[in-house]
């Protein structure tokens, strides 16, 4: 079924009886060419691009809960391509290009909105670091504009310019940055993959990975054994556990990241704003809620919930930067489980097991990477070679010292 405005109207006139399921609910088959473990954003986009780009459709996505139940179901939905280290730049640039065609490609409105992202800076040193970043973005072919204090004021007149703890010196505007409707991204990819023949199997937890003579043979699941020629692990939040089934110890520590949404409000914030000094970022959803977040709770956790010190820190940051949001009320807070890697960059690579691939370590930047991650993981699984824009996301780069550390905070997992 093709979605369109006309279809919405004709179905509306007919009592909305004609809408069909967005995806099938198949039982797992005994064998697939490819099994993707994990039905989150990255797993679904991997399956979609395996089918679309490589014609590999005998694919199963195994999801232990419901589709999109991981971090794609709980994030602050920021889409940006503002990295500066070679290895990251080209990847996120590629992802941005995919975002820009995603609605047309998926025939699904993921509400990707390029409202502009502004990173604020508060000292000469920070400005210089952002200028370096902005220039790298332009060198990559993306966009960046340096705003001085008055430039920021023009875009964001409601910030506290006079009395804030860290005076606003200016900002780096990334006009193509913005946000998207997170669930819709999962559903759009799911529907697209399903349409191309991929089996999306929910409530199917992988309990073991079958390896024979260094070659992957399939997986054990709560719905029985499934044979597969190739298996991809795409399970942010559980990467260490699933990789351990293949005898791997990953360079990952899992951390909780909280985020918040307020009650609905009439439009008041148009951009995505990032206040690095206070570890605070905010945007307003189309429904009207202010969606914002801060830093990790900082302790290793799988609880998917946080504690008050970071909650308060985030709120205090909001109050020092933009006290006009004081009377907005926080409606809901949640926590996602982040795969924190020792340099803050992800891994898309083969493993020591033939036919077993892994896509993990997205830290807290995984949402914007969903299209390119799937694209590159599909490329790797289909061809056996890394895609050129993901070639530096190697599993062994920590041992060899070829780090991609945008923050410069070093090998401590929770500092990225």
């Amino acid at each position, binding site marked *: 079924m093709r*979605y*369109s*405005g006309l*279809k*919405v109207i004709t179905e*509306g006139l007919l*009592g*909305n009886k004609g*809408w*069909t399921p*967005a995806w099938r609910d198949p039982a797992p088959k005994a064998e697939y060419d490819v099994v993707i473990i994990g039905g989150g954003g990255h797993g679904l986009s991997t399956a979609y691009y395996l089918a679309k780009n490589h014609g590999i459709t005998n694919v199963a996505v195994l999801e232990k809960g*419901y589709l999109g139940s991981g971090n794609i*179901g709980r994030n602050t939905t920021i889409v940006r391509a503002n990295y500066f280290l*070679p290895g990251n*730049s080209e990847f996120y640039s590629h992802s941005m290009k995919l975002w820009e065609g995603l609605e*047309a490609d998926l025939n699904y409105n993921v509400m*990707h909105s*390029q409202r502009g992202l502004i990173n604020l800076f508060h*000292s000469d040193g920070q400005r*210089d670091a952002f*200028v370096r970043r902005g*220039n790298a973005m332009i*060198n990559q*072919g993306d966009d960046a504009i340096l705003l001085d204090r008055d430039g920021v004021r023009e875009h964001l007149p409601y910030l*506290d310019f006079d*009395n*804030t*703890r*860290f005076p606003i010196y200016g900002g780096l505007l990334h006009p193509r940055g913005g946000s998207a409707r997170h669930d819709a991204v999962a559903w*759009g990819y799911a529907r697209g993959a399903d349409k191309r023949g991929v089996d999306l199997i929910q409530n199917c937890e992988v309990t073991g990975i079958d390896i024979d003579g260094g070659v992957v043979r399939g997986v054990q699941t709560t719905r029985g054994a499934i044979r597969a020629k190739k298996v991809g692990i795409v399970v942010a939040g559980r990467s260490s556990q699933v990789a351990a089934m293949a005898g791997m110890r990953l360079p990952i520590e899992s951390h909780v990241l909280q985020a918040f949404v307020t*009650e609905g*409000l*009439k*439009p008041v914030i148009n951009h995505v704003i990032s206040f690095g000094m206070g570890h605070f970022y905010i945007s*307003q959803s*189309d*429904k*009207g809620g202010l969606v914002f977040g801060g830093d990790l709770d900082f302790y290793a956790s799988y*609880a998917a*919930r946080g*504690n*008050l010190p970071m*909650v308060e820190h985030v*709120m*205090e940051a*909001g*109050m020092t930067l933009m*006290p*006009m*949001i*004081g*009377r*907005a*009320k*926080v409606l*809901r807070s949640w926590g996602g489980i982040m795969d924190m890697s020792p340099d803050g960059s992800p891994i898309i690579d083969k493993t020591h097991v033939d036919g077993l691939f892994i896509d993990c370590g997205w830290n807290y930047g995984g949402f914007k990477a969903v299209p390119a991650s799937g694209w590159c993981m599909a490329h790797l699984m289909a061809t056996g070679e890394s895609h050129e824009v993901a070639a530096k996301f190697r599993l062994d780069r920590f041992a*060899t*010292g070829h*780090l991609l550390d945008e923050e410069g905070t*070093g090998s401590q997992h929770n500092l990225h």
Partner: protein
Amino acid sequence: MRIDGKGLIDRTKPVRFRFDGKDYAGYKGDTLASALLANDVRLVGRSFKYHRPRGVLTAGSEEPNALVEVVGPSNQTPNVRATMQEVFEGLVAQSQNRLGSLRFDLLAVNDYLSPFLSAGFYYKTFMWPRAFWEGLYEPIIRRAAGLGSLSGKHDEGTYEKAFAFCDVLVIGSGPAGLMAALTAGRSGADVILCEESHALGGRLLSDNQTVGGMPAGEWVAQVVAELQALPNVRIMARTTVTGAYDHGTYGALERVGLHKPARPNLPRECFWRIVAKHAVLASGALERPVAFENNDRPGIMMASAVRTYLNRYGVVPGKRVTLFANTDQARGVARELMAAGVTVAAIIDPRPDASSVEDCPVHVGAEVVGSRGRLGLSGIQVRKGSEIIEIETDCLAMSGGWNPTIHLTCHMNGRPRWSEELAAFVPMEGAVPGLVAVGAANGSMSTHGALVTGHAAALKAVEALGRKVSVAVPEAEDMPYRLKALWAVEGTGRAWLDFANDVTTKDVKLAAQEGFRSVEHMKRYTTQGMAPDQGKNSNVAALAVLADATGRGIAETGVTTFRPPFTPVSIAAMGAGGRAEGFAPQRFLTSDQASRDRGAPMIEAGLWYRPSYFPKPGETTWRDACDREVNMVRQAVGVADVSTLGKIDIQGKDAGRFLDFVYTNTFSTLPVGRVRYGLMLREDGLVLDDGTSARLGQDHYLMTTTTAAAGLVMRHLDFVHQAFCADWQVRFISVTESWAQFAVAGPKARALVNSFLEVPVELPFMGVAPVRIGGVDGRLFRISFSGEEGYELSVPTRYGEALFRDLVARAETMGGGPYGMEALNVLRIEKGFITHAEIHGRVTAHDIGMEKMVSAKKDCIGKAAATRPGMWGPEREQLVGLKTHAPISAGAHLFVPATEVHRETDQGYVTSVCWSPTVGAWLGLGFLKDGRARHGEKIRLVDHLRGLDVICEVCHPVFHDPEGEKLRA
């Protein structure tokens, strides 16, 4: 309509307030909702999506419809529950989410378009043309969506946060909570009793009941009086416990000043962090609506709310009331209304076996199937068998039974348990360690059950605390709770589940039809439960409809997760103290006032405030001042406050050995009285920090760190010490705050310093000596961050200001004066000294040309990891100097001249730049691939953001006095 003789309002204290521009009167004790209903105002809001007329549904914080903006003199508060806002003299409120007036909302057109606005419609359209999304569709959607408005002005209100501790936290003051608080309170345990409302008593204030042989109100008053008299009990009214967190921590929001006109210093709200050894959850239950066609008209209310308005506020929201309920308990409201002289037109009870004996018509086995009335209810249609009965009514009290208020028990991922008997979810025991749910919150629906379970939970907590108490539980009603679950009445029209987000049974069924069968998918697809009430009025019914649509049971269908906060909390309350400068401590130098006296703009650096430059008359830009200050240091003498550098006093026989371990180079061989530059790595081999350490005595060193890394280095040293060498003879402590330290630099520095000292000293370069200045013991270091002969003079902090003023005054007599951060930066760039602009966390000792400082003779932190292949080699960018005659900028990237500019051709980047009055050129420090081998090459510097494209010469990073003759002079 107000009823004489009823309610707990203070009729001697009338209050005037304003709603939508019209003045009304209420009484002290009224909420905005009760006062509006008393004034026969039924229409109070518009719904989220269809802009349907809406009235008050509930009498509590779960209210989905009656959300208003409260307008203050300088600001406004959106989405205030009229059911929680107490009226006060001068209160101004207005309706929200409307285009035009509340009665004629232009966006009500959406209601007519509803067939096209079904669940998830927006995912299927607005995709073409692409550019129209940001330009057209999204702005329209955004404007139509949202609820109330922020003013856009800074919130200048006062807010506070506070901590509290107790043995037993009791959440809710209904019968269960009061009984628990009384039991724990009498035992002598420290008790905090939180009640969301302004009055204690919970449903005992709303339902005509008898407790312990007396009217419930009297019993409440008695218990409250006793609790107030107990010194170990703290009663917190107007306080909602909003979240349960780890290890007995609870968040709670107290409405301190929201029920009063604003007063200086009086907090609007206080966000509490309560730490409790035990907690008793006595949060009661929430009555649930029934979905039937057009069940959302103003005048259709929860039965319990009608009862609350009658008994607590003396208000009846209609003249001809009808009741649609599936429990015996709900009958009470009809009886009480009739007793108060209000006409009850009919009772509609879907239970075929229910009693029909009442003093009004009763339709058993019947259901309400529809309603009429554009801006307020005027009648309902009742289906009894095959018959449809029209009943005129302006207030329908409805009840579909009760949902225990279990939210807090789920805040730590606990899943509730489905009870078939109650047709509701009840808490899973132990879901929040230390928290026990009692009373209706735990499914004990009678008053007797509440009292007994509240008492028992408190007793258990008291015993665990090692205390004893004996309290008798009073007699109370113990009516069995018997219901026939009724979620949605069959019909073809729109029947609302989620009033706040306009989600109907059709939407839920459509979600199921489209494959969104998981309860989480349904929620996300329809947005049911995502409105300000977070599904308090709709979750269970919606999932019952979903269960039905997917052919599953409710238990099997599951439930979405309740997360904090229980009720929304303002950002300002949780962020109290963060406003303006409160976000982080401010650190001030002793020279702060002296610098400001000289007109120096102060800049923030690592929480400190430091002078940027010291302007002189005639200077029009910072550069004028900076250039002068640089020349002053190069030619005469300059004074700068460098007290912000971290200073760590390290003592012990193993102090040298310890420094050898944390620095790449060796300090154990440093002679007493000498200073050495040291480089510190992180264990991953990258540079952590640099600085000098002085050997003050055989077993005594003083380490300095950069300003930015002072805390980091201290933590690092503590770790290395405690983790790897706790048995060594070494102890250290920060003395950053103990010493004020001033750099004196320039050819005349020695003369200036010696004019101060009681006994002049001749220090070699990198020497240190104790000195006496004006009777005070100080220290003199001969070190330099400028490239000139330089000293740093330190005295106990109390003398800092005096010393700075004196030093500056003397310098001025020698043609010198103070210099600020700008000049300091230029001086260090000219000399090729690095700061955290260069050691930004991604550089190795090798990158900055200091690989020789990594001693081969000993192990040190970071040494091994620095040998990884990726940390070496010509592919890495190395520190270089850049020199040119055109302005250049930090953050620019470097390219080979005449090559294309893009990522693949990028050769490096610039970290620091300055105009050098000394060299007469623009200088830069930067990192260039294989840079050390490229001195003398031309390189192209490109800064797109500032429009710079300049050819520079690559050179050694030390531009000034490369042999260091001046330093050693």
